């Protein structure tokens, strides 16, 4: 059985990618997936060597042919996204790709070409294979791209006999996050001990409950506010979320990022490394990763 851990946070900038990269160094027989397609950063720590590259074709957008357009106004009346100007030009940023104008234009003056919305890659890294993507600037369909690369990651894991998918998730709780967590084995929620961190965590926990994915929580930079850390841990217990541990505020994360490395590659052994190792051990042996108490999984992980 292939397990998938998705690292999420609600709030951005809590340390998802730095921790994902650190876990990648500890996991064996695993594949990485960067599901934060609109601000993907994991590749900056992984330096993936791209082996396959594929265009991501998203939805279509309307284009009016001025030679055929009679200016009858039908499209402007029907468009609910204010995407068509009074000069009958379509604003591609506003166009939702619904095609209603295309179908109703009495002159058939509106084309509806499919858009290339980005690209996705299968790569090799020093920690195993990685599937990642780049969504075009200002593009829609990020949820579809996330679903696509998760499906592709799973396919590669099956082909190569890998046990574990480590997915770096996007921030927030909207479309790309929903696409990133559905059907995952477990979520690892990285929270910072701040009023906004806790507020955003609660919404991610609600979302996890909504889609019935079990969650576990890490408090990162816990020493910025120990009282808030305790509040988060209490809240987690109340919501039936496993508390994995506390990671200190440690500049080593920034220093290693600047070098394009993860926690375990940069510099000397530090107490923070041991904290992260202990957290990883807890994730691997957690009940949600080992349903029915089957522990075979542990043997494949260092």
């Amino acid at each position, binding site marked *: 059985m292939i397990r998938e851990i998705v690292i999420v946070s*609600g*709030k*951005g*900038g*809590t340390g998802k*990618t730095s921790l994902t990269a650190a876990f990648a160094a500890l996991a064996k027989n695993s594949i990485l997936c960067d599901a934060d397609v*609109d*601000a993907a*950063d994991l590749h*900056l720590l992984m330096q993936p060597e791209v082996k396959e590259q594929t265009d991501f074709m998203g*939805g*279509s957008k309307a284009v009016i042919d001025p030679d055929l357009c009679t200016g009858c106004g039908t499209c402007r009346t*029907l468009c*609910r*996204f204010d995407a068509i100007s009074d000069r009958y030009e379509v604003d591609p*940023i*506003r166009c*939702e*790709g*619904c*095609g*209603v104008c295309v*179908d*109703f234009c009495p002159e058939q003056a509106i084309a509806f070409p499919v858009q290339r919305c980005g690209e996705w890659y299968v790569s090799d890294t020093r920690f195993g294979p990685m599937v990642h993507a780049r*969504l075009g*600037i*200002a*593009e*829609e369909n*990020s*949820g579809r791209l996330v679903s696509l690369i998760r499906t592709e990651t799973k396919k590669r894991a099956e082909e190569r006999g890998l046990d574990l998918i480590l997915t770096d998730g*996007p*921030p*927030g*709780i*909207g*479309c*790309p996050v*929903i696409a990133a967590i559905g059907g995952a084995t477990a979520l690892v929620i990285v929270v*910072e*001990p*701040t*009023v*906004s*961190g806790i*507020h*955003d965590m609660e*919404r991610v926990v*609600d*979302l996890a409950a*909504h*889609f019935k994915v079990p969650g576990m929580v890490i408090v990162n930079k816990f020493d*910025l*506010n120990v009282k*808030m850390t305790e509040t988060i841990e209490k809240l987690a217990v109340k919501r039936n979320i496993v508390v994995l541990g506390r990671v200190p505020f440690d*500049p080593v994360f*920034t220093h290693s*990022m*600047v070098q*394009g490395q993860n926690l375990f590659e940069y510099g000397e052994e530090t107490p923070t490394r041991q904290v992260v190792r202990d957290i990883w051990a807890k994730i691997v042996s957690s009940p949600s990763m080992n349903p029915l108490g089957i522990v075979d999984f542990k043997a494949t992980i260092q």
Partner: protein
Amino acid sequence: MIISIASGKGGTGKTTVATNLALALGERVELLDCDVEEPNAHLFLKPQIERTERVDTPIPLVDEAKCTFCRKCAEICRFNAIAVVGRQVLVFPELCHSCGGCMAVCPEGAITEIGRELGTVNSGHRGTISFKNGRLRVGEAMSPPLIKKVRAARDPGRITLIDAPPGTSCPVIAAMNGADFILMVTEPTPFGLHDLKLAVEAVKLLGIPCGLVVNRADVGDDKVFAYAREEELPILLTIPFDRRIAEAYSRGETMVEALPEWEPKFLRLFADIEAIIERGAAK
């Protein structure tokens, strides 16, 4: 005047800048928190919420008594949100983009619309500062229509500050489009720079003038500064890493309240933005 505060990367300090700027400017502003997935500005501004309004998006309701199962609705829908299976029409509300195509195409007039809840818009005040935020319903995927609703009835007599969501895709565009100025908050790290570049590309697409706030300016490396020089992006404010700021933030306190020496710096930031907008208008 509309100033949108954005970043690309999450957690760089958008909300910090937006709330501090609002407090420094006082009665002249309205703050719109358009990070509807994870709205946080209220935790720092602590406004009195006076009104909560549910926001719906229209989805089709099919009257099967009138329906002839001609499938025209299913054919026009690009989002697979409506399907005809035998003598039954299935609507998948969460896939619907509310374009109204099915209703417009139905020859029998069998389709009307009902609402799907997107979330709420909450409005109120902190003293004389006007405040509004959107809260996306948990489980709802589409944030742009809710963001547009938060921005809908703006007060033209005030300076509008928009706290934008992270990223560079459609929700961010919804929070930046039509602004007079984009204030990008970044941090001088490889992640901060990488995501800043993407966000700046999005701003260029929109053709809006842009400037930077570099937060935690003394961590990481100097590549963000080099990039700003190359791109001729003005750095309007630098905030050093200061544990007192981080700890105050963790408790929900703003910089201008915890460290009053910051208030003139935020006023200066606004004056610089105003000057850039005026210079642009003069051109």
